[in-house]
């Protein structure tokens, strides 16, 4: 497994951990004691807005730690940092498919509203599809690196 595949794997695992811990934190702090908050749009808005910088910040920290560990394990040798045409093609293909998935999730989320479900169901479907699309993006990149593009 080369450095780019390892980087994707680390990103995948850290994304899963971030979403799991954040969901657990929001649930235990806000939802467990007051389930009625699920119908409060302000709660969903602030949860989204906090999640984005937290997830980006944690991803950056984890990638920095990964780069330092890799540098130490490679005994100071320069690792391959070039992002070339193949990387861009792989990224484009993975983004394209994951965007389709997110659009499907968005339509499903709107469908829950159209079917008269509670608004919190729409938010859960929306967040889940965003998370799933992000996971699929990483998995596809890993797949294209392994199987070819």
């Amino acid at each position, binding site marked *: 497994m080369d450095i*780019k595949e390892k980087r994707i794997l680390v990103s995948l695992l850290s994304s899963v951990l971030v979403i799991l811990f954040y969901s657990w934190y929001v649930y235990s702090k806000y939802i467990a004691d007051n389930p009625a908050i699920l119908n409060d749009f302000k709660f969903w808005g602030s949860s989204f807005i906090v999640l984005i910088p937290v997830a980006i910040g944690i991803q950056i920290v984890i990638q920095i730690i990964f780069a330092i560990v890799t540098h130490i394990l490679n005994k100071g040798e320069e690792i*391959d940092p*070039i992002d*070339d*045409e*193949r990387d861009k093609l792989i990224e484009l293909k993975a983004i394209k498919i994951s965007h389709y998935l997110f659009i499907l999730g968005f339509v499903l989320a709107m469908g829950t509203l159209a079917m008269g479900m509670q608004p919190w169901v729409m938010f859960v479907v929306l967040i889940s599809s965003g998370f799933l699309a992000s996971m699929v993006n990483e998995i596809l990149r890993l797949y294209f690196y392994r199987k*070819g593009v």
Partner: protein
Amino acid sequence: MAKVNITNNIRTLRFLANEMTQQALAEKTGVSRQTIVAIENGKYFPTLELAFRIAQIFAKPLEEVFTFELLTEPENKKPKN
């Protein structure tokens, strides 16, 4: 569209060029070593620009580095009147 098979002689050409390493070729062409590995293994077909760059490094014409083969013939379309 007909299926195609694109192969290359990069491994042989590297050997003939004083056992040039994949890393050296990658540095000369401005791509990562993984990309050179993928091209050699037929897992990635380079852009025309990269293909020409590789050919230029070995001082060979493109068709001596890469070979192109049609696997199935495309159906002949009837000419429009």
